[in-house]
């Protein structure tokens, strides 16, 4: 897949995800280890049921036929982990790119 297409898919996923979650929120695109799939981290202010929210957002991207992993974290978790080297959130923030924000 060429870069232009990839960028378009990422932007489309960002728009779909940010539209689906309550504001304020951010969507970060994170490079996948093998570069074979898309990975998105969605940051939501309140996150009472992470598992259910991840399933819901995965379905949204699935229906768009976007092959992606979606991880959802709360703002609290973000602030707790963002400076912990080696943590997933730290790495995501360092290597990822915010593609949508509300």
């Amino acid at each position, binding site marked *: 897949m060429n870069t232009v297409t990839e960028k378009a898919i990422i932007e489309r996923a960002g728009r779909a995800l940010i539209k689906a979650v309550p504001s304020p929120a951010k969507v970060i695109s994170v490079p996948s280890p093998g570069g074979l799939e898309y990975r998105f981290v969605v940051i939501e202010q309140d996150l009472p049921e*992470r*598992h259910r929210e*991840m399933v819901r957002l*995965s379905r949204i991207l*699935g229906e768009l*036929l976007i092959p*992606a992993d979606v991880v959802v*974290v709360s703002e609290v*978790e973000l602030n707790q982990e963002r400076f912990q080297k080696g943590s997933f959130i730290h790495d995501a923030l360092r290597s990822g790119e915010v593609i949508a924000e509300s």
Partner: protein
Amino acid sequence: MTRCDQVRLLPSPESQKKAHLFLQKAEQDEIVLAKLRGDFDVGDEILGFHAQQAVEKRLKSVLAFHEIEFDRVHSIAYLAALLDRHGVDLPACRDQMEELTPWASSARYDNLLDGILDRDGIEGVALASREWAEKIVGAMSWFSAYANAFKHFARYAELDHLMLLVEGDDEGAVVHLTEDGSVWVSVLDQLAAFNLIGVVDLEGEPAEPLIDLGEYVTLEIGLVGIADSALQSVAGRQALVVARMADDRSFHWAHASRSGLTNGVSPPDSLSKLLLLIDGIASEPVGPGGFEKTAPDVRFSVVDGVLRLTDLQVELLKKQRDEFRERFGRDPGPTDPVFWKRSADEPEAMTPEELAREVAKGEELGISEIGKQLAAREVLFEDQMEGASEDDEEEKQSPYVEVNPLPLILVLSNAASMEGDLDARCLVAAVHCWMEGHLAAEGHGEAAETDAEMPAPPFPDPEADGDRLNAIVLDAVARFGYKGNGIDAIAYASAIAWRAGLEAGEACGGCAIGESSGAISRAMRRGEMRIEFFPAPRMASSGQPAAE
């Protein structure tokens, strides 16, 4: 027919292999699940991961089977949506399957997940996904478990070919044994009436035996076992296994149906005839309960559905055959009587009185018991025919309402032993299977017989159907080449052409051949009648045959 249609009909061996590998891997995840599900020292993230993996791999298996490209991803929702978009029905538990997605990435994301796994529910989801995938991909555990044993069996029995056919209630299947000794099974809804085409490729060394067949399993028992196991494993209507010996190229076969098992052996020059006889015994449908031999044939004494043919019976039959040849100048066909009137110019069954006299003569020759058995069955047959109602007669004479696999094997057998390049052999097989498909169609049964000159329906029309026929042949050769001495390609071309013939037969406006079981069609199958069709399939634009 578009290429897409063909793909749906028969995935390539590579796709089947890939699909089966996913299923095998999913099975491993399910084994872990089954072992650990009740152990509460094992965390939800471990069980959830394996449940998700089992489902993910089964979805990928079906995607591979349908030759749908997919990305490497753990999202069940994406994989399910992809299948949905291609018109593949998903299991009823799709929602529960999709809820497993987050468990795939638990470890990767520092155990951020906070879900609670429904330990009782995952077993049902895993089971449903397995049943769903296996129904589509047909990875019957029976076949994969015995793949290597098949190969050892073939070595032990000194076979050079093994073919297996199964007919399900509402679906057909394809079994393919690849060069590395693995068996792949595919269930194909579209080939429902066509049954199974099984071509076992016996090249390559088998792995260490999982099951030591030793010297306890004879060829006959082995083949009957394979046919019976295949039938049971797919809950099918009938299964047939045909094996060819490496040394003298004689054919051994075993047939299993719901009414019983039969087996036999045929010298290489008479496979067609024997198969036609099995055709008469085993494949006349009598209703949802299964198959029954509606017209008992004295050549095979079928007792409780089991074929019992002793050496003495064989001797007697050989004697009768030799006399038949001498008297009528040809081999007896499957509809010819074993005991015929000495005075008749054409083969005509003896009356009971004449048979009794024959038995008496047989006693003098020391074959009284055999003669009595055969005569008793002939008389029984006559009695049944005398008492048959007009409806029964009509039913007996009607074309097959269902298609059995035997004509296909005849085509395969003939085409496999033909001289010439693969294109030509595929073409012969395709033309004849087109005929079989046409004869099997309901529309054909309703149409009148005509005196049209050959090639005419039920064969393909050279002008109207030529492109389609050539496309079938070229596609078959491109897909399989000379693998398995070309039998794979021939089988594929046969399958697709049969389907095309069926479509043509449904709109039949009159045919040169009236009955599937009639003299002409049987003579065609025996190779006693031939039609000239295309001299050769058209070449690709390069001027070379497309696949070689």
